[in-house]
């Protein structure tokens, strides 16, 4: 064994004191490194660490701003927000996700998949996300017990949107849902919305979302390492949203909805004050329940609405286009008078119809050679066939647009459709679609086209709201207002009142011309015309002036009692009253309702009569008239979304 292997060969060759000093030097070196590290962290990078320490213990908890209520013109609450409690989950404070998800599903019945999805949402990065709305008192008690160990569970007071009238006026009011990721990226929302906000997605809720929403406030709180509340350091209160007073008159709205429900057909009724454009009623059937959306609509419920062929989500008054039938004759008349091709005293032959393009197109009767009032009263097709040819396409297009056909009315509801009026481009596009082999000759605008267009067929597709605006304007003798629902967004201490900015449009015609037109509409209701069954007999002398329309849906002539409902004609009625100084105008469209005087004119009559009763201080709905009506405070039970 060679000891020299481990030890120096020379005796006493090592000095333990020197070796000790070497060790001590190494230790001093290590301490120097630690000292430098302290200096670097606590002096050089101090600021950054101070900031991190602050972020660590601070939480920003949003305080939702109460969303403004929506009221009718008499102050009835149509939409409000009620306090409910939501179970929120704060991702930042989750220690053990599996455990949290297990508790959620076992204690609160929240599906794990849903909770996981919520945690992945972009909202979860910055704030607590809702995992269960409308929790019970029992849930709240559980949370306060679990909360100490699981500070990720929070209870938040969430104003829940309520629509006490259910489906009534749903298309006007709209609904709210949580803002989508796609919407958040859009600049119009990014400016004032946060992930997790509930925003209006339809109707007035969407149109006036910004006014209704207000501005969310927040609390800054100090928490400990487990996210438990320690103390509050700042509170910025929310700015409440503005209440919106609408022009709607709920009493009349209920009458209109009732009328449509009784028809058991799809359709729409709009009632407007012709003097200023205020919409008193807008009903569209079938409808939907906005409460379902506000509560977080289930996939099945949404699919039921979206796939329903009756399209309950669509506001028929502004988002659907229809052939207007004979109501179009009013537009034709004004266009022709304005274009200078017609005076009210012109006699135009009816002839029981007209032969054009190798076919004979019939009139419903033989009216001789009527002047304008009679032609309107009797809805003489022959008169308008010839007038249509005389007017020509260009005049029709120009003056039709001037009256607002195929143009946005500017109503304060989102997603208004523009509609169509006849044009060569429209015809060519239609022909290309329907008849790919059409010859260039067939692509031209013909007199036959003018004939069909004159009675509201052949590419005439305005929206009901456009016809209502025009009718009201005619009643006002050329004064057209913008239909709207905003009476006033009430002032708050943070925001001034907002009113609708009405755009007045005038179409000038000699007084005698307007008289003749109105005379014709008066006659249609009050003097042996097409709507004479719906004449209103009121002691105040209120007389309704109107025009029926019966629009062909299929090109063959069908019996309007046809068992196939979808082949029946659309039933139209437009009206205003009283004859002088009109106060109210209305439109009714009943899809496949058949003759205009039968399915639609009574609707308008019913609403106008309710209006008159109200004006006299009587209840809008006659007590005892109908069982359902007797309880006028309560909403009418909604009709099932799909009736057939």
């Amino acid at each position, binding site marked *: 064994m060679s000891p020299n292997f481990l030890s120096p060969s020379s005796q006493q060759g090592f000095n333990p004191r020197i070796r000790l000093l070497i060790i001590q030097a190494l230790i001093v070196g290590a301490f120097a490194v630690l000292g430098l*590290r302290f200096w670097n962290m606590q002096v050089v990078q101090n600021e950054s660490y101070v900031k991190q320490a602050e972020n660590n213990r601070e939480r920003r908890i949003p305080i939702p701003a109460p969303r403004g209520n929506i009221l009718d013109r008499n102050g009835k609450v149509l939409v409000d927000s009620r306090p409910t409690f939501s179970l929120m989950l704060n991702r930042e404070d989750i220690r053990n996700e599996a455990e949290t998800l297990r508790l959620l599903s076992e204690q609160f019945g929240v599906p794990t998949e849903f909770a996981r999805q919520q945690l992945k949402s972009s909202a979860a990065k910055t704030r607590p996300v809702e995992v269960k709305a409308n929790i019970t008192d029992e849930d709240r008690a559980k949370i306060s017990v679990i909360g100490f160990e699981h500070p990720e569970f929070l209870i938040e007071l969430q104003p829940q949107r309520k629509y006490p009238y259910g489906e009534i006026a749903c298309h006007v009011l709209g609904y709210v849902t949580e803002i989508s990721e796609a919407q958040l990226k859009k600049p119009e929302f990014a400016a004032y919305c946060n992930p997790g906000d509930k925003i209006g997605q339809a109707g007035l809720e969407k149109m006036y979302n910004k006014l209704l929403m207000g501005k969310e406030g927040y609390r800054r709180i100090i928490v400990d390492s487990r996210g438990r509340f320690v103390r509050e350091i700042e509170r910025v209160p929310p700015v409440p949203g503005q209440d919106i007073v609408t022009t709607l008159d709920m009493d009349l709205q209920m009458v209109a909805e009732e009328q449509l429900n009784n028809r058991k057909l799809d359709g729409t009724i709009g009632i407007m004050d012709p003097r200023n454009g205020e919409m008193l009623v807008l009903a569209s059937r079938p409808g939907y329940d906005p409460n379902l959306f506000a509560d977080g609509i289930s996939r099945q419920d949404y699919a039921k609405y979206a796939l329903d062929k009756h399209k309950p989500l669509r506001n028929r008054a502004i988002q659907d286009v229809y052939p207007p039938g004979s109501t179009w004759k009013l537009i034709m008349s004004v266009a022709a008078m304005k274009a200078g091709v017609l005076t009210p005293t012109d006699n135009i032959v009816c002839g029981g119809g007209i032969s054009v393009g190798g076919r004979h197109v019939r009139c419903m009767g033989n009216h001789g050679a009527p002047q304008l009032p009679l032609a309107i009263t009797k809805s003489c097709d022959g008169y308008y066939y010839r007038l249509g040819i005389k007017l020509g396409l260009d005049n029709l297009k120009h003056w039709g647009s001037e009256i607002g056909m195929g143009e946005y009315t500017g109503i304060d509801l989102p997603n208004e459709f523009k509609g169509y009026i006849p044009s060569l481009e429209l015809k060519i596009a239609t022909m290309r679609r329907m008849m790919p082999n059409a010859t260039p000759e067939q692509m031209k605008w013909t007199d036959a086209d003018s004939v069909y267009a004159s009675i509201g067929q052949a590419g005439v597709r305005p929206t009901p709201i456009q016809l209502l605006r025009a009718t009201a304007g005619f009643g006002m003798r050329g004064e057209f207002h913008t239909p709207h629902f905003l009476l006033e967004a009430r002032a708050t201490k943070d925001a001034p009142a907002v009113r609708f900015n009405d755009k007045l449009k005038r179409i000038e015609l000699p007084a005698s011309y307007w008289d003749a037109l109105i005379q014709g509409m008066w006659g249609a209701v009050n003097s042996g015309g097409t709507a004479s069954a719906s004449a209103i007999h009121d002691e105040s002398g209120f007389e309704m002036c109107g025009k029926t329309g019966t629009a062909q849906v299929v090109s063959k002539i069908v019996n309007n009692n046809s068992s196939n409902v979808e082949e029946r004609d659309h039933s139209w009625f437009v009206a205003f009253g009283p004859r002088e100084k009109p106060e109210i105008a209305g439109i009714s469209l009943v899809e496949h309702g058949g003759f205009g005087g039968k399915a639609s004119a009574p609707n308008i009559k019913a609403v106008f009569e309710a209006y008159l009763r109200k004006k006299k201080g009587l209840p809008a709905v006659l007590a005892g008239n109908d069982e359902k009506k007797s309880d006028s405070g309560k909403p009418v039970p909604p009709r099932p979304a799909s009736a057939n």
Partner: protein
Amino acid sequence: MPQRSLRDFDWWLAGAVALICGISILELRSTQIGMNQGLYQFHWFRQLIWCIIGFIVFFLVSRANFQRISDIAPYFYGLTMFLLVLVLVIGVKINGQRCWIRIGPLGTLQPSEFAKLATILMLARVLQPLPRGNLTLRQFLIACGLVALPVALIMREPDTGTALTFFPVLAVMLFLSGLNARLVTVGVIGALLVAPLAFKFVVEPRLKQYQRDRINVTWNAIFNPEKLQDRTTREGFGYQTLQSMIAVGSGGVFGKGVAKGTQSQGGFVPENHSDFIGSVIGEELGLAGCLLTLALYLFVILHSGQVAGQARERFGMLVLAGYMTLLAFHTVINIGMVVGLVPIMGIPLPLLSAGGSSLLMTFTCLGLVANVYQQRFVN
């Protein structure tokens, strides 16, 4: 004689230790402010009790007969080895480790703490005689064996950090026993060259995932601090290191004040009464407090080394040098953990971290230093 012994008593050492204990009690109290519990549940109070016991032990050991200590070393070693086996059988499991034996109301006993002292004493006893001034291969092998046994047992607990502390102690004690200087040089240089390769191919594949994660965190804390902000790191295995660094870094020059540290008071740094007490000092006492603490430790360590150099017998020199190494290793590794320079391993900061076994062991060892100090000029 009593007068002389009082004059020769190691007052400097006792003073430095008392200051460290004072800081410890002050900051342990700060970590539990506002808690409503029995007095004995407070770390600071238990630390105070243990410090008082510790100073008594310190005084008694400083007066003990050093030869007797050498004599009982084998029994002490044997007893601690037995306890290390026992802890594997009846030990209390905390955080997956079986390091503690519950002993009634006194709390728990950590045999590995005492194994450190026992091993140092045994090593010194074996390495003390130097026939012809040389370290024999036989001594070398026995020394290695004496260390291997407790290391193997402690690895079973498993407590890698504590097991690691034995190696620098062994190395230094061999070095001071005349290990060939050239061999040492070649060994150190060779080790430095081989270490990265050995780590990559031998150590790393054997590491558990949490160990690998901790090493990654340390790497990032030193070289890419922004990577610590990564969500999975920030809220996962990097949490403790990052929170500790935030605590220390946000302390600034003079600290946020006792009981005013937001990190410490909010409980953001786990284990801030034991292994991470340094983060509380860093946050609440600032750079000033940290440098003072470092200086106190450095004084105790260098003082121990100096006394070792003046020891009359090799046994005393080796024991003190071994302890000096152990204390230095603990201090550097623990504070390194707190500032993110060393991966997290369960190594407490002697005297500062709460813990009776560690305190008792430390005071015993410091008593040995004082003992040698008193006897250095005695003939």
